[in-house]
């Protein structure tokens, strides 16, 4: 469940706990080690403690228990302004009474940098986000996307090694968000930054990160690279939170190392890969990605169990067909098939047999 903690990481959370009211723990035993140059995303539902973790790292909240290390030194007692961490806020927090250039110049001024050096750095940072022309605008005179770029430039202008971003793209529309994702990623690569990024957009987390920490209920549920997270979720929460997912409840019939057989509610038997199954006879939730479900026998691996399905609805989505079916008593089982030449068309009411590679059906805890 929790990552092993080493003191070697650039940023280390070591058994960190946080409570605001002394009654409930908002962050429960957080252990996390972030390598230098890594892009780590904290992903999780609202209220799962992501912002709290970020605030503790930035120094605006104190950890109730445990240590936070930055570059090997304990920063629990270090005030925020001495941490040298760049931060991008969700509402940008650009100072409204200063122009863009003054905003960017602020962190350099408080560091006592000379005027000419300051101006050069400010222009370089603005050019980096293609905002050089806006140096003398006020934040209120710019669009959300432009403000976002300025906020980014301001967090980077004093060359911090670590940058924190709390849902920086939350207020932007989809297209702009995707564009900015690309730019942030690009800056991360070219500047060699360490980034801790908070979002509750899973697409964003998957496309940008080196590793994703999925938060729920004050704990990291899984910490893994995006592909592993998507393809091999460790528990039902992660499986459901990331991507679309079919869930079939059942009982473990046979357990044999890498494979197991699960008897579903209606009596059918399916193949699955046990993930956090401990013993035979245990209740389980089998999770299968819709795009890994097949209905053509020739696509099935040899020996795989097939199961009856009734087509309820076929939705044409351009590149794919989304087929909703009744499987083992549940009516929201979804299959996605690519819209290729010669793809077999299914019709509501049709009965088919479906199946999948046992590796794609993961038998998880029943939540």
């Amino acid at each position, binding site marked *: 469940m929790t990552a092993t903690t080493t003191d070697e990481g650039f940023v280390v959370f070591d058994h960190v706990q946080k409570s605001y009211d002394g009654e409930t723990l908002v962050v429960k035993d957080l252990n996390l080690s972030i390598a230098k140059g890594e892009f780590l995303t904290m992903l999780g539902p609202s209220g799962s403690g992501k912002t709290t973790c970020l605030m503790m790292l930035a*120094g605006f909240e104190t950890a109730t228990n445990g240590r936070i290390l930055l570059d090997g030194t304990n920063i629990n007692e270090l005030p925020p*302004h001495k941490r040298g961490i760049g931060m991008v806020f969700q509402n940008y*927090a650009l*100072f409204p009474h200063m122009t863009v250039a003054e905003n960017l110049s602020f*962190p350099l001024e*408080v*560091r006592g940098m000379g005027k000419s050096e300051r101006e050069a750095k400010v222009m370089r940072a603005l050019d980096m986000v293609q905002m050089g022309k806006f140096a003398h605008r006020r934040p209120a005179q710019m669009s959300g996307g432009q403000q976002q770029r300025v906020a980014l430039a301001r967090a980077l202008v004093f060359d911090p090694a670590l940058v924190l971003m709390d849902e920086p793209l939350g207020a932007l529309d989809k297209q702009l968000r995707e564009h900015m994702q690309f730019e942030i990623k690009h800056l991360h690569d070219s500047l060699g930054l360490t980034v801790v990024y908070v979002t509750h957009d899973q697409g964003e987390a998957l496309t940008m990160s080196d590793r994703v920490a999925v938060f729920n209920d004050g704990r990291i549920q899984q910490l893994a690279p995006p592909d592993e997270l998507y393809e091999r979720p460790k528990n039902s929460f992660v499986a459901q939170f990331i991507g679309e997912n079919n869930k079939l409840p059942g009982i473990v019939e046979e357990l044999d190392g890498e494979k197991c057989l699960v008897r579903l509610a209606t009596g059918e038997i399916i193949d699955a890969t046990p993930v956090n199954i401990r013993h035979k006879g245990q209740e389980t939730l089998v999770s299968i990605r819709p795009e890994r479900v097949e209905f053509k026998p020739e696509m099935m691996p040899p020996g795989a169990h097939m199961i009856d399905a009734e087509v309820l609805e076929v939705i044409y989505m351009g590149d794919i067909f989304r087929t909703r079916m009744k499987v083992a008593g549940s009516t929201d089982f979804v299959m996605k098939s690519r819209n290729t030449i010669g793809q077999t068309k299914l019709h509501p009411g049709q009965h088919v047999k479906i199946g999948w590679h046992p590796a794609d059906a993961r038998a998880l805890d029943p939540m």
Partner: protein
Amino acid sequence: MTDATTDLATGPITTNDGRPLKEALAASLAVRRRRAFLLVAPLFLFILISFIIPIGQMLGKSIYNDGFSSHAPALAAWFDAHPAGSAIDESAYVALRDDLVAMKKDKTAGEAGTRINYDISGTRSLFTAAARGAEKMQPPYMDAFLKLDKKWGDPNVWRAMRSASSPFTMDFYLAANDLKRNEDGKIVSVGEGQAVYKKLMLRTLVLSLEITAICLLIGFPIAHLLATLPMRKAMLLMIFVLLPFWTSLLVRTTAWMVLLQQQGVLNDLMVWLGIIGDDGRVQMIYNQMGTIIAMTHILLPFTILPLYSVMKTIPPSYVRAARSLGATSWTAFRRVYVPQTLPGVGAGGLLVFILAMGYYITPALVGGADGQMISNLIAFHMQKSLNWSLAAALAAQLLAVVLIFFWIYDRLVGIDKMKLG
């Protein structure tokens, strides 16, 4: 952009049925404008009747007073025929007698005398007495008048009558600035002992600025606390802030008396703490200090509320951003937080300053002799001396000072940046 293209294609833009667009727009807006006007008309009328007209009349009184001129037509004619500096000869006394006889008949001698009395005190009885005997007076009138009262030969009295024979006068503004005209009509300052108004105006200004500064100094942290505290606690604190509004004036005054007087609670406390000796008790009421303390108390909410409403809208992320960018908490406060509260500081400060400039009851109750403000004198002239014209002149000057400060504020901060709530 679309405008430009349409312009190029068709010239002035018209609606579908060929009317010019501007005209059509104006017609369609006219109804809405009429309705809006009708909605505000009652308020407008109310303000006009209850505020603008009385103030206009009041201000008019400061330069127009016909108390003497309307009852002394003969003298007015004589002054017209004889320019200032002419010798006061028998013809003048003839005119004086004619007017006095008329005054006696119309019972207006007192009114006319009052007007001259504003300029030279003690002259009201001169007129009432002379009016009584005017009918039986025998020429030569000059001697008759002088026999009645030597003052009738006083050039000052004649100068005052000349000046009052025209209803329009700047005399009250002169008086409001401790100036007067001498016998030759030159403007000179009144004697050392009589100069009160300029000093009082200055004191009012200084006290108001002091009170504004203290209010801002005290109000700023309280407003900040209010804006950052959890709702429940903030509401409780808010009640304390608003308490002075909810207590009656008498209760408040009594409380101040109990607290501030020499044998009062505050003095007892300081003596008990050893800050001052028993013989060094401080008089904190019935002097300027009393005015400052009491007015700060009553005006504090007017700074706190605008400040609070501005601070409430400043998200904590600004200061956090500043801190994360490397600013110490003091720098973040000074360079990021304070500038954003300026609209509130401006609004609160201006409000308190304007209110303080015109404050009247509190200084009257707890100010003692040297804690009085200009409004107290205006009230005195309105109610006691009944010299409304002087009161009006003083009030007009007060208004002018306030407007000047308003203008300065507008130039420095911009009135559009003000945020009252």
